[in-house]
């Protein structure tokens, strides 16, 4: 007090100055008060709650006054809520009260008393109306708080930068400054938040006031920009959750500072007054160093080194002549061993720390930590008593109805049961035990979840969170779980798992990274993600000699390597993703599996039989050979597409039963004439395609491919057939010309389930439909079918711009392009009249695969698909297999006609003949001449927004609709009949001619 008496005196001087000032002002507001208020009111009468508006009337005195009435609202509103207006309007009689209210300002203490008097009255009134007045008050506050929301007339909050750690000091110093200097400054308040460093908030009407006030303040960066807090955010500034961390005994905490930083500790005692807790932890004490220190021998201090945690062994300490005292703690009465002012008991260090130096929220000790924490001298097993402390950290809602539980403490120990109901305090369980009341109330903390070997569980907390697996062993309430992802055993607390039928791969995605992604790390090394868990990402590094696994955090990953490359095996066979290779030398010798990632000549393959590293093997490409075994035949088929995209000769593959598919493709690609025998050579699938020669003396030449050899192809140019290197050609019309782009798409394959050997047949079928449509839309040559990019490229911009450069590189394509490798099959169905559906694998078309929807969308042209839509009323559908592929063309739709050697023309289909060719009236309204065009020469015109379209495929085939727009790869349409909004593949939409 003494030091403040001066201040007080100072203040009273200041105060008197101020009072004078106020006295000058006072009459002003007294006079104006009423009228001013009336003005305010007249404005706001219509505005509902007058009080609020009134407050926001112009004069600040009125603001003040309104505030008072507001304050009164606080108290009086309870019984006068309805009279609010009345209260506002009949202010004049109340004026006296208010004056009374203000005048005592000169005597602050009196004011406070007044305040209380006021409250007293209110309380009386309250008790008249409601018995539970506390409740009423609370209620009132909730409602009233809304009325206090800041308005534009209220002072604003300004954010001012200050020295870190001095926020409180600044706030207090500013207060002192304003007290000392009186009303010179016009700031209203200063706010220092505990959780916001480096800034304080100052409440003032104007920025200038803030600047004035902070001028010359030591810890404020007055030159920094002062930021205005938006009105909406003002309340956020003040609404700090009163962080009530209830530290209680037995709770697990983590140390935040010093050599014990990060260590697990258990709360032994809490001193709420001094904000200190006693924690018990495993000491990190180097006895030798301690001994040296105690004997006064200085040792070299290595600060960076923290001794490993080890229980204190008193005898050992004594041997080193460290003085150990047996001491009784005065407050607790417990005995401790005291060494160098540190207290030990049972080997644990008991340490008094500030509550601020421990972290108590969301601490989930790991199994290992807890195991370490148990006293070594005690029996080897962890007993429930020890671990029950773990439950102190249990979250609410830990148990759920139906959970199997076991009682771990008390008379009913080891009784099993099922949870019937979870109450606040206890849990009702039902047990099979006879003679016990059912259900039985048990304390939650006496219960533990119970699992049996064979249960499928999912980990819901802790470091393995998200993993699933099967319980293989139950050791009291520690489970050993065989993880689905890693096939490793995880030791985990029963508390951390729930039963789950889900069989997932655990966490398969963290942020942008997915399991099995190839990633570049910050140290520029690369590797494949073989395991993801909430704490770390496990990566098999791309070091071929020896498997090297490292654990990294997501932020240590620079990016995902998306670019796919090829590699050559020992015999110069090209290896692409999905190829099966065998390692013939080095660490992983003898292992084999499909390649999942290739980067810089390093292959990452997956061997199902390899339990290490989630089955992943890393090897140099030169130590591997491509396997052409029949078990990979199905793979090959799929691969062949990508390979084919790459223009690489597929490694010789023994003919497999499914080989025909490749033949099919080849044949159907052959423009029209490709009616070959099924089961033709795999290379045939290139034959008949139009290619452009990229390299060599024939660079730039275009022609039809007539023969495919091991390393070369024969291309029929305009005049002659020449021989060029296989790699030296590209699709003539195709936009993709560089190998890397091909690589890109080829390697998408692995991502796609439909490419797996299981569904080998699906691929061609789907595409056959897809391609013609798209092709028609984009490329003049129908036999471009094999262009991998065509079918799925949904994004409009991209299809419209035929800029080759944008194609392969555009990342947008990635997801879609994964479909494409299948494309080559397009059209084959039409060209193979003799083929029966069943042979083609029609049933498989229905096979569940992500592709199915899209294959459906292409139905009209897909022979295999047709059986699925028997009722489709496409009158033009011809019974002949040959033509039905094109039946999507219906009169009235707008098409582009491409005739060889002519420019493309827009026209309207007038009629579709039975052979599939159309009568097209040229012109966008069909006003021009009519021409005949074969199916191949027409392509759909893609609608623009609000265009009328006809749906040419799928369930709604034949319906008319309005095109709303594109949503990613989907087109949105509104059906004209039902006005329903449907999502359609853009390829199913044909623009209708204007009528």
């Amino acid at each position, binding site marked *: 007090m003494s030091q403040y008496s001066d201040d007080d005196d100072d203040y009273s001087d200041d105060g008197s100055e101020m009072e004078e000032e106020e006295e000058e002002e006072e009459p002003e507001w007294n006079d104006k008060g009423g009228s001013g208020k009336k003005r305010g009111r007249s404005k706001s009468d219509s505005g509902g709650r007058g009080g609020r508006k009134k407050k926001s009337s112009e004069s600040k005195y009125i603001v003040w006054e309104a505030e008072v009435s507001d*304050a009164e609202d606080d108290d009086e509103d309870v019984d006068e809520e309805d009279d609010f207006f009345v209260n506002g309007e009949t202010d004049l009689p109340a004026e006296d009260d208010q004056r009374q209210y203000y005048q005592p300002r000169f005597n602050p203490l009196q004011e406070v008393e007044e305040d*209380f008097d006021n409250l007293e009255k209110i309380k009386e009134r309250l008790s008249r109306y409601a018995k539970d007045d506390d409740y009423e008050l609370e209620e009132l506050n909730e409602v009233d708080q809304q009325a206090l929301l800041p308005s534009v007339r209220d002072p604003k909050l300004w954010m001012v930068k200050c020295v870190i750690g001095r926020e409180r*000091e600044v706030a207090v110093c*500013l207060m002192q400054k304003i*007290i000392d200097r009186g009303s010179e400054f016009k700031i209203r*308040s*200063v706010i*220092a938040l505990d959780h916001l460093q480096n800034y304080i908030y100052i409440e003032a009407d104007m920025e200038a006031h803030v600047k004035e006030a902070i001028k010359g303040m030591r810890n404020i960066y007055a030159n920094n920009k002062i930021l205005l807090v938006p009105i909406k955010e003002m309340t956020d500034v003040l609404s700090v959750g*009163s*962080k009530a961390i209830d530290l209680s005994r037995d709770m697990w905490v983590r140390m935040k500072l010093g050599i014990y930083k990060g260590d697990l500790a258990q709360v032994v005692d809490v001193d709420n007054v001094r904000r200190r807790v006693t924690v018990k932890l495993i000491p990190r004490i180097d006895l030798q160093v301690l001994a040296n220190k105690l004997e006064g021998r200085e040792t070299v201090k290595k600060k960076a080194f923290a001794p490993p945690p080890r229980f204190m062994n008193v005898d050992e300490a004594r041997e080193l002549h460290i003085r150990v005292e047996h001491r009784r703690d005065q407050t607790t009465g417990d005995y401790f061993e005291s060494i160098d002012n540190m207290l030990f008991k049972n080997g644990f260090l008991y340490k008094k720390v500030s509550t601020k130096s421990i972290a108590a929220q969301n601490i989930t000790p790991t199994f290992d930590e807890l195991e370490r924490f148990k006293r070594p001298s005690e029996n080897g097993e962890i007993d429930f008593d020890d671990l029950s402390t773990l439950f102190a950290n249990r979250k609410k809602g830990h148990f759920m109805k139906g959970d199997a539980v076991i009682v771990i403490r008390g008379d009913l120990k080891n009784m099993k049961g099922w949870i019937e109901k979870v109450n606040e305090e206890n849990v009702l369980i039902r047990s099979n035990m006879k003679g016990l009341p059912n259900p039985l109330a048990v304390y939650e903390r006496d219960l533990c979840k119970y699992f049996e070997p064979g249960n499928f569980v999912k980990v819901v907390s802790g470091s393995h969170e998200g993993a699933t697996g099967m319980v293989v062993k139950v050791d009291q309430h520690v489970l050993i779980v065989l993880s689905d992802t890693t096939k490793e055993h995880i030791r985990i607390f029963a508390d951390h798992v729930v039963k789950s039928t889900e069989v997932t791969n655990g966490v398969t995605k963290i942020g942008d990274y997915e399991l099995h992604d190839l990633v570049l790390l910050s140290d520029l090394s690369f590797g494949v993600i073989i395991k993801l868990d909430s704490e770390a990402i496990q990566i098999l590094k791309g070091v071929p000699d020896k498997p090297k696994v490292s654990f990294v955090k997501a932020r240590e990953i620079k990016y995902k390597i998306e670019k796919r490359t090829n590699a050559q095996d020992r015999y110069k066979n090209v290896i692409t993703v999905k190829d099966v290779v065998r390692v013939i030398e080095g660490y992983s010798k003898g292992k084999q599996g499909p390649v999942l990632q290739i980067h810089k000549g390093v292959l990452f393959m997956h061997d199902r039989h390899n339990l290490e590293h989630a089955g992943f093997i890393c090897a140099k490409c030169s130590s591997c050979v491509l396997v052409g075994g029949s078990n990979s035949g199905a793979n090959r088929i799929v691969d062949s597409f990508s390979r084919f995209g790459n223009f690489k000769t597929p490694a010789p593959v023994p003919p497999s039963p499914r080989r025909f598919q490749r033949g099919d493709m080849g044949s159907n690609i052959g423009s029209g004439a490709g009616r070959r025998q099924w089961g033709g050579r795999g290379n045939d699938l290139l034959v008949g395609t139009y290619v452009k020669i990229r390299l060599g003396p024939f660079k730039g030449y275009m022609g039809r491919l007539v023969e495919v050899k091991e390393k070369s192809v024969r291309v029929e140019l305009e005049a002659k057939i020449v021989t060029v290197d296989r790699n030296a050609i590209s699709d003539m019309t195709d936009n993709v010309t560089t190998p890397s782009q091909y690589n890109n798409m080829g390697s998408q394959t692995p991502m796609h389930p439909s490419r797996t050997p299981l569904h080998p047949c699906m691929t061609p079928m789907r595409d056959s439909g897809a391609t013609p449509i798209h092709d028609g839309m984009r490329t003049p040559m129908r036999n471009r079918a094999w262009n991998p990019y065509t079918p799925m490229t949904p994004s409009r911009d991209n299809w419209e711009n035929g800029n080759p450069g944008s194609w392969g590189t555009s990342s947008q394509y990635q997801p879609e392009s994964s479909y494409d490798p299948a494309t080559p099959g397009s059209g084959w169905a039409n060209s193979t009249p003799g083929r029966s559906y069943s042979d083609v694998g029609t049933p498989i078309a229905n096979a569940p695969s992500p592709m199915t929807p899209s294959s459906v969308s292409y139905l009209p042209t897909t022979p295999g698909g047709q059986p699925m839509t028997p009722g489709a009323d496409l009158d033009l559908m011809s019974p002949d297999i040959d033509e039905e592929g094109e039946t999507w063309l219906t009169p009235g739709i707008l098409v582009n006609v491409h005739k060889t050697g002519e420019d493309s023309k827009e026209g309207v289909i007038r009629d579709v003949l039975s052979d599939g060719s159309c009568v097209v009236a040229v012109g966008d309204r069909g006003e021009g001449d009519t021409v005949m065009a074969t199916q191949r020469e027409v392509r759909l015109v893609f609608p623009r927004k609000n265009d009328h379209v006809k749906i040419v495929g799928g369930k709604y085939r034949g319906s008319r609709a309005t095109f709303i727009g594109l949503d990613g790869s989907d087109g949105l349409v509104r059906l004209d009949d039902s006005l329903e909004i449907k999502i359609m593949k853009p390829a199913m939409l044909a623009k209708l001619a204007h009528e």
Partner: protein
Amino acid sequence: MGSAPAQIPTSFGHELRACLRCRLVKTYDQFRDAGCENCPFFKMEEDHERIVEVTTPNFNGIISVMDPSRSWAARWLRIGKFAPGCYTLAVAEPLPEEMQLLCQEERVQYVLPKRM
């Protein structure tokens, strides 16, 4: 400024405590010497043990209110009618029950802290 300001904390560290009723922040010593300006009925200056009962070191954030009646923040925090001074934004603990009774006897409003 309306009324005489309360004492201003002399330090900014652990010694600070906040009155559980009005949230005024001062050091322990200040409470001991002068009590709480807003809650004189606690008579902390006479009964020092009461300081521990009615004040807490566990509070969150500081707001220095220079002009309580004209400060929106003070009004929002419902300290607009208290003396100018340093307050805290929120305290976590409620007043001990007997102290709440004392408030009732004194006919002083006491609002329990909001539980988060």
